[in-house]
């Protein structure tokens, strides 16, 4: 098993700690001039989302977590299970609604997503940054109103609702930013 020493420490490092995988999301190097170098780190548990504060001294090391990222297509949802298939191996992976979290709002069949595997088990997924969704229902828009500062809720084909500008109509395709849930633009068929 690979180890990271303090000189490898940086944001984004995935490590194994007390039996769980963690991501280092903050790492501050502090050192009194003639004294011991310390690394003040914040780590998030990749399974539970809990946060740990840990201080390490120069020369300490942490075990690397067996973390892999793969690309997989979303196949279908079966109650609380979301089924994905790895693009290259056709291996299927199931994620729970809890693991998919808010990303269900963007998931359409065939969409290629990033899935994080820990010891070969999926633990989280990320949809593409931008997705195109079809508006299934919204209040009718005022003709000719192209203002983008007035928004209305639009229900899309994944079942989720997003605020879109007033000129968006039922049947339109809209591009949404999955990191913020924000409307970007209307898309032609």
């Amino acid at each position: 098993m690979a180890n990271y020493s303090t000189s490898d420490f940086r944001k984004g490092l995935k490590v194994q700690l007390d039996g769980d995988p963690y991501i280092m999301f903050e790492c501050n190097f502090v050192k009194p001039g003639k004294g011991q170098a310390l690394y003040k780190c914040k780590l998030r548990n990749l399974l539970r989302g809990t946060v740990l504060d840990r201080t390490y001294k120069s020369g300490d090391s942490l075990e690397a977590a067996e973390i892999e990222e793969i690309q997989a297509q979303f196949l279908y949802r079966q109650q609380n299970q979301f089924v994905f298939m790895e693009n290259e191996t056709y291996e299927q992976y199931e994620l729970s609604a809890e693991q998919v979290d808010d990303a269900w709002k963007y998931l359409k069949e065939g969409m290629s997503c990033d899935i994080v595997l820990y010891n070969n088990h999926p633990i989280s997924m990320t949809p593409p940054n931008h997705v195109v969704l079809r508006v299934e229902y919204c209040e009718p828009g005022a003709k000719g109103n192209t203002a983008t500062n007035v928004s209305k809720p639009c229900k899309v084909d994944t079942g989720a609702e997003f605020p879109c500008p007033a000129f968006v109509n039922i049947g339109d395709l809209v591009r949404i930013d999955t990191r913020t849930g924000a409307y970007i633009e209307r898309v032609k068929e």
Partner: protein
Amino acid sequence: MTNSSTDDFRPTANWSNLRLRADMLRRLREFFDSRGFLEVETPILSADTVIDRHLDPFYTAIPPFPLGEGPGRTAISPLPLGEGPGVRANGSGQWPVISGQSEATSGKSPAPDPQPPVPRLWLQTSPEFHMKRMLADGAGAIYQVARVFRQDELGPLHNPEFTLVEWYQPGDGLDEGMKLTGELCEAMLERGPAERMSYREAFERYVGLDPHTADVAALTAAVEKCGIQPPATLAREDRDGWLDLLMVERVQPHLGFERPVLLFDYPASQAALARVRPDDPPVAERFELFVAGVELANGYHELLDPDELRMRNSRTNAQRVADGKPPLPEENRLLAAMRSGLPSSVGVALGFDRLVMLAAGANNIAEVMAFPFDRA
């Protein structure tokens, strides 16, 4: 995300900060020039290096041209160009041996060494040794704006290569040394005269214990009481390690906000190259300057006794080995300079990049240097 792949040729500092940096460098030189200091330059690459428990020098293994005769060295004929690191010298040529590195060849007549030690030159962690050699030769007051190198120091306040301003004033004691450091700080940053606080006062005020007399149990209890999570590998008997932890977590964050703070009389165990005053308990005649929680300068009333230095060197190397670090050569030309007689003096080193950071209101050292480590 910035498109780092195409844009990382650019300086990380903006031009207003780089102009400020140049202006401060000019004012700093004026400060020392007007006080009769002589600006000097000394080697960055040297056969000697300062031995500190927590400072790790970079080194180069490129075979140097002859260094001449010196302690532990053998003159060699110049290596032909093209012989690089790891290439064996042939003929009568020997690798210049740097003292402390090869026990095998010292004291014996030159026997063919099957695995000649790769010669090493050290990138200086500070210009201290060379400047003291100048002092021993009668230099008088000197200063230097030096590039120095320290391995594994990378963070918002650290870059492995940085600019250190170092000065020596023969005849000065701790009090005068602090006075000049405070004046320089006031001239450069205009944050008022520095206030003085002893290391003990600071610990009493912010931690509630006497750092000179508290035992390890009291220190670990204070760490726990403050809610600090100590490194799991911090040895219980490493008293200075516990003091450093409290210093970083509980003392330093308070220092130098209203006015710059000169912290003085460090624990004797943290004397480094400062002389120890035989008070009860003894304290190191060492001080540091803090501005807005940032450690800016470190000064010593310099140790003059070569035997004491040798003792500290071997003690420090023993600690390095215990820490899992390689020992550093203990023989060096500073010892020769001290044996010939070093004048009593104060020496101070100040982090110039941090000084610019404070003037610019920067939060990261990359904002005041053109090309930090990851773009160098």
